[in-house]
């Protein structure tokens, strides 16, 4: 009893198509650590937030040299930086070196205070926009939370009121 020759040809054709298609399909890594599909979409926003926190910390360091010590705020931004770097790592990306950061070594206190306030305001606005657009909900919540924190410093006279972070 012989089979239908058309079926045989169809099977061969399908097999020939399926093999290269299977080869093109993205493969999960052996360790199972392939980033979630949303993760890479948020990497740029997380990277930008990292760069902003680094900039703020650098400015706070120079302000401390000039006698404007804001230890509490420094601790808060350091916590932001660590959380963002972790999120970036969990997203399967690594923090790339930031664009060259301004050198504040010759900055004067008043001018630097104004620049710091402006930088914090800009970063809060950027974080809010990034939170709205983030593909991953956990990234969105983290970015929104940091935006809220930056905003509270902004709204509380530059954070001068703050005591110990909790």
């Amino acid at each position, binding site marked *: 009893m012989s089979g239908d020759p058309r079926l045989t040809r169809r099977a061969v054709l399908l097999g020939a198509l399926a093999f290269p298609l299977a080869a093109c399909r993205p493969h999960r890594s052996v360790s199972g650590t392939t980033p979630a599909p949303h993760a890479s979409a948020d990497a740029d926003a997380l990277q930008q937030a990292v760069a902003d926190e680094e900039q703020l910390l650098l400015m706070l360091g120079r302000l401390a040299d000039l006698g404007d010590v804001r230890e*509490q*705020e420094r*601790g*808060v931004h350091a*916590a*932001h930086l660590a*959380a963002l770097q972790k999120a970036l790592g969990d997203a399967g990306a690594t923090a790339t070196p930031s664009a060259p950061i301004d050198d504040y070594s010759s900055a004067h206190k008043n001018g630097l205070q104004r620049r710091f306030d402006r930088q914090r305001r800009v970063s809060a606005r950027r974080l*809010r926009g990034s*939170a*709205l*657009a*983030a*593909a991953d*909900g*956990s990234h*969105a*919540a*983290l970015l*929104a*939370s*940091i*935006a*809220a*924190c930056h*905003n*509270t*410093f902004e*709204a*509380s006279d530059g*954070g001068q*009121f*703050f*005591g*110990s*972070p*909790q």
Partner: protein
Amino acid sequence: MSLVEALQRALAIEYQVIYGYGVLGAHLTAGKETNAAATPAMALQRLQEHQDLRDRLAELVHAAGRTPVTAEPAYRLPYPVTDPSGARRLAQHLENTVASAAYAVIAASRPDSPARALMIGALIDAADWQTRWAVADFAPFAFPFPGRPGQPAAIQPSTTPTSSPS
């Protein structure tokens, strides 16, 4: 937690917060203490903002095809409020609870969705107001991550209110 569950939880918390503001507003001018940084007018302004947030949350739940949760007749406060200081501390507690609910909605929401946009604003506002009340209570602090899980719990429904809203 699904988005609808998070929205319903946030709505239930708004009912509690509105009840709580009714209580605390009545105590902000009690006794001899006066504090220009924490007035009944501020409490009233914030109460109206929470009422608006409640309505918008209910609309989002409706839009998702679900029936919004309803308010309880009364709620048990986390502690008795008898003076302006207690009122300010309750306000901080309430705003912290709102921030937590907003964080959860953001985490469960889709990019650029009305729910996410609404609750990013709610998180930022709650953190701002929590700070305002803390500063007015001469107990400033900085939360690095407003709303992030691990904050104090919400006040609970009760059939026997510990204090009557005004």
